[in-house]
């Protein structure tokens, strides 16, 4: 089971307390009634469904209840970092060192133990 760092509670909690909430950094259209069918389809139905590094919203549902953003690898399920909603997409190249310190996966803990 993963430990996920909630940037609001400022602590790692079990993944059971969290829910994924779709892609991050998507601006909800303000003129939805005037949108073309193509634009609405792209916003509402189509997904990048990225294999690899993805930015997504998560919610600390059974905790503080707040939405935040996360950078996660969908192949390993490793959380590279989590950050507060509204902050810009973090620079990926600087993520890795911060990750080890802030978000520990089960695999990382296991390899430390060895």
């Amino acid at each position, binding site marked *: 089971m993963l430990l996920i760092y909630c940037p609001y509670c400022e602590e790692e909690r079990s993944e059971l307390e969290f829910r994924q909430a779709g892609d991050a950094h998507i601006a909800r259209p303000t003129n939805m009634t005037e949108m073309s069918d193509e634009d609405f389809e792209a916003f509402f139905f189509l*997904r990048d469904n990225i294999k690899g590094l993805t930015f997504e919203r998560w919610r600390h549902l059974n905790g503080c209840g707040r939405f935040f953003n996360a950078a996660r690898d969908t*192949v390993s399920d490793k959380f590279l970092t989590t950050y507060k909603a509204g902050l810009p997409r973090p620079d990926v190249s600087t993520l890795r060192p911060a990750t080890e310190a802030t978000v520990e996966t089960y695999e990382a803990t296991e390899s430390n133990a060895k």
Partner: protein
Amino acid sequence: MRGHRGWEAQWTSPEPRKDYDVIIIGAGGHGLGTAYYLAKEHGITNIAVLEKGWLGGGNTGRNTTIIRSNYLYDESAGIYDHSLKLWDGLSQDLNYNVMYSARGVMMLSHNVHDQQVFKRHIHANRLNGIDNEWLTPEQAQEFCPPLDISRSARYPINGAALQRRGGTARHDAVAWGYARAAADRGVHIIQNCEVTGIRRNPDGSVAGVDTNRGAINAKKVGVVAAGHTSVLMEMAGVRMPLVSYPLQALVSEPVKPIFPCVVMSNTVHAYISQSDKGELVIGAGTDQYSSYSQTGGLQIITHTLDAICELFPIFRRMKMMRSWGGIVDVTPDRSPILAKTPVQGLYVNCGWGTGGFKATPGSANVFAHTIANDAPHKINAPFTLERFRSGRLIDEAAAAAVAH
């Protein structure tokens, strides 16, 4: 008696040619079946089925082998029952025992809401000529003796819906049977061949694929790649209405025959059957978040086993032997996409989500028709990619007989 020596390979592993009429990406049941029906029914035999791993090693080898067609909407009833009719007789058609066993799929009703929903399904199914019947708790127990129908059960049962033609089949045999039958007709099955790009002509139409074994030309390309459909379609610049999730299943140690049918419970959320090897085959819903990890969280299968133990206390001391995960591609309306794409000569068969195995023969059959004629069969005509633009959804998300 020859001591298990002298077994011959069931299909050849040829070097890829430079040109094919049709390339199918993905050697699972749906992909191999598509090649088989293209060869058998449409006379197209210059086909390659490309597989990045091993044949049948994706979701075809990772499901719980349940077959049923009791879907609510007419479109779904059409395609799933087309499939069920092909299951009946598939072993003879392929000359390969796929062990289709119409042992019945029973869905447990635990409350008034379940009862109303199932009865609505039963009526809708019967209007579409699909067998589905309501059982009282006593009849349900008669059909499935291990079922506890006492009022003191943790989740008492107030009835069940039974599709007698539903059942199970041997998943590996389906892939192997289609592979052998397709290879016999000249289809090339090329394993360990990963597609890395989709080549296009100057006019935008499909020219072939790039692979780790070099470029291969083709007039038509069919993508049948389940959880990795988004990755492949992105190579052709087509963004898909799909999200990939892990779906886990597990089997117990083998025991003597005790469980005669398939039982599903949406409310308690698990399903169970017994394989012919004696293992209890158990599954439930997808993992909570999207992933390509092919593993999934332990808490998900723990939850599934909680449900099984509540429904069938006799299984509480069974040991679980293996668990695994597959990556399923889920559409917004929980119905598949079998269609042409905006790219000429590129076809896609995807979005089967958590329930693709049961559809294998029907899906392959109509997808072959779609590729051969460059136009959909009337059965898969509603399952377009454009329905997410027009809004003409086939919304099994709320209507499907299983919880998601």
